[in-house]
């Protein structure tokens, strides 16, 4: 599976990725029910903006991930495919990962760190990408993404 890229020129800041992410991480995986669940489902992507340009901010699964290096309990780790994963059982809530993340892509849920887990319940797609109405979010390799940008009229 490829990585998630964002063509920020296409991002309208609608926050649909946020809702899709939260719903995907709910018990029911249904918008209407998710909002009533006792444990509020939390999104792992957040729409931010630089001056006027909105963009979705989430874990970039950095090749050399500062969060993994900084994690003292070994909760943040790299899986076989090189994605950055978080083992909640090991997390001690020291927030070092939050301190060192250059993107600000990690947040807190009670005493645990919270970040993009690449939708483990989905087989071959991601909730935020599916939820993006302008197709600003894209899944593939860096080469594929570059090719896509090149093909589209800028």
């Amino acid at each position, binding site marked *: 599976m490829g990585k998630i890229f964002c063509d920020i020129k296409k991002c309208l800041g*609608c926050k*649909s990725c946020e809702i899709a992410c939260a719903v995907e991480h709910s018990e029911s995986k249904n918008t209407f029910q998710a909002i009533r669940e006792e444990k509020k489902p939390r*999104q792992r992507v957040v729409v931010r903006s630089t001056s006027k340009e909105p963009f979705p901010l989430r874990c970039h699964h950095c090749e050399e991930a500062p969060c993994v290096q900084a994690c003292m309990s070994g909760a943040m780790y790299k899986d076989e495919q090189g994605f950055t994963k978080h083992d909640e059982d090991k997390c001690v809530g020291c927030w070092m990962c939050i301190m060192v993340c250059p993107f600000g892509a990690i947040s807190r849920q009670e005493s645990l760190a919270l970040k993009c887990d690449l939708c483990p319940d989905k087989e071959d797609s991601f909730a935020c990408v599916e939820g993006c109405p302008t197709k600003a979010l894209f899944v593939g390799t860096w080469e594929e993404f570059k090719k896509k940008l090149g093909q589209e009229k800028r």
Partner: protein
Amino acid sequence: MKKEDKSIDKASQELLEIAEKEGIDTAWDRYEAMVPQCGFGELGLCCRNCLLGPCRIDPFEEGPQKGVCGATPEIIGARNLTRMIAAGAAAHSDHGRDIAHTLLMTAQGKTKSYGVKDEQKLLSLADELGIKTDGRDKKEIAIEVAEKVFSEFGQQHGELQFSHRAPEKRQALWRKLGIMPRGIDREIVEVMHRTTMGVDNDCENLITHGMRTALGDGWGGSMIATELSDVLFGTPRPIRAKVNLGVLKQDEVNLVVHGHEPTLSDVIVTASQDKELIELAKKNGAKGINLAGICCTANEILMRHGIPIAGNFLQQELAITTGAVDLMLVDVQCIMPALSSVAKCFHTKIVSTSPKAKFPGAEHVEFKEEEALPIAKKIVRMAVENFKNRVKEKVNIPNEKMDLVAGFTAETVFKFLGGKYRATYRPLNDAIISGRLRGVAGIVGCNNPKIKQDWGHVEMAKELIKNDVLVVVTGCSAIASAKAGLLKPEAAFQYAGKGLQEICETVGLPPVLHVGSCVDNSRILITLSNVVAEGGLGDDISDLPVAGAAPEWMSEKAVSIAFYFVSSGVFTVLAPPFPILGSKEVTELLTRKLEGIVGANFAFESDPIKAAHLMIDHINKKREALKLKPVMYEREKMVVK
């Protein structure tokens, strides 16, 4: 999505396959491309009413919880929903206004294309509206009726005349709550005022005014549309006809009318029977002219002339996909803008007719009452002349068609229960009191690709009649039930419970009664008032063992309808839910608190069987409160998980 998941209708499934093969985009394809739909919109958490925004509230409570002005989910949800009521009420009421206009022009002699077909109804309406009838010319009476009705739209104070048809107790409640509608247009305008930036910020106060507006539709605009249509085009009587895309004909000119107002479609019926035009059709190689309808304009001419129905809302594109429609005439409401692009794949001409509704890619032949018949003939001629352009290889008419009986009204059907010579509601009331009938339910509303086409309507209707609940249907729901064969008297033996079966057999009624178009939901209101007046079942509509549902709704009109039913005291189940679930308080108000205010609630349930059982449970609760006998043939209680 597989075709079996898109529709339960075989004709739809067959044409969806063809559409896919030919690369024709349908509402289902466009829906799939739209999924997931905006969660803020679904939950009613976005506000675009002023340019401090657009604002949206995070339903998961991490992001903003208030709009820039400070609006909470409660305010935003209630404001948006109230605006939906206003739009729906405006659509029905403007339709009613157009019919009143036609009546006025007819009476003034400004158009020769219409006449007063039901004089009796004109006279009784005149009486009700306080217009003298003794020794007066019919035309004079008709002018005065039309003018009086017109004044109901612009009335600034007082009460709508037809609201006095409701039971006394209900009227008193409306007055007490301050929701008795004053004027049809006034309430709609007030919604727009209250919901603009910085006016009404109390969700209950907003919804309460929404109810007043909706009542102005049900007991005003819609009721006017129904009553004056009966005056002009005749009060429907039970009539046999056929339904589904199989009514289109291989060897005849197929003209399909689609939309809502009967003013043009009724005249098209006359024009399509014109000898000269039939002759012209024959010269063009067709055997005749076949007229069929889609949506409510179809219901109007079905009930009065037995004109076949080609399909309901989600079949408008599929009708064109048959390649056999030579012309589709459209007027207002529920007409997909996609029609002209589907028509481009075929020879079909789309003709728009209303100055209020133009469609890029369609030909526009403007309808005027003064020249209704010549315009109708012109359009029929266009259809006839287009027959020769039909491409034989592209014609795929499904075999599916079904028999039906339609044309029941508050005046006819229930009185038939008592026989011709003692026309009364007594037998209906007695049937409910004795427990032969559990109660009555109305199933109304649209199609929506979010729900398998017709599945919601048909499964719900079957479950209700199985449990001895007599079902009345209107609009696209009526067409769904018709296609499934539920409007045939024989359906009682196949699907109805024993009690309902006995009644249907005795009187020769189908277990599901077609009572008209969507403005004809007003016929259901009148029927309910008549049942209360007949006695023995309480003294308000909210006492009756009845319930309503819109299991596949999509239009704002359905919101208005749902609200006037609940405000009249009828428990109503909806699918999909109103876009307000993001607000706890508004959800609580609509699904619980309203019962204490107007005697009825909303419920949201997407499974039609579970929804039917919510209705049955409600009916049972009302029977218990009335201390009625147990239902005569009670089935084993179904456990709904």
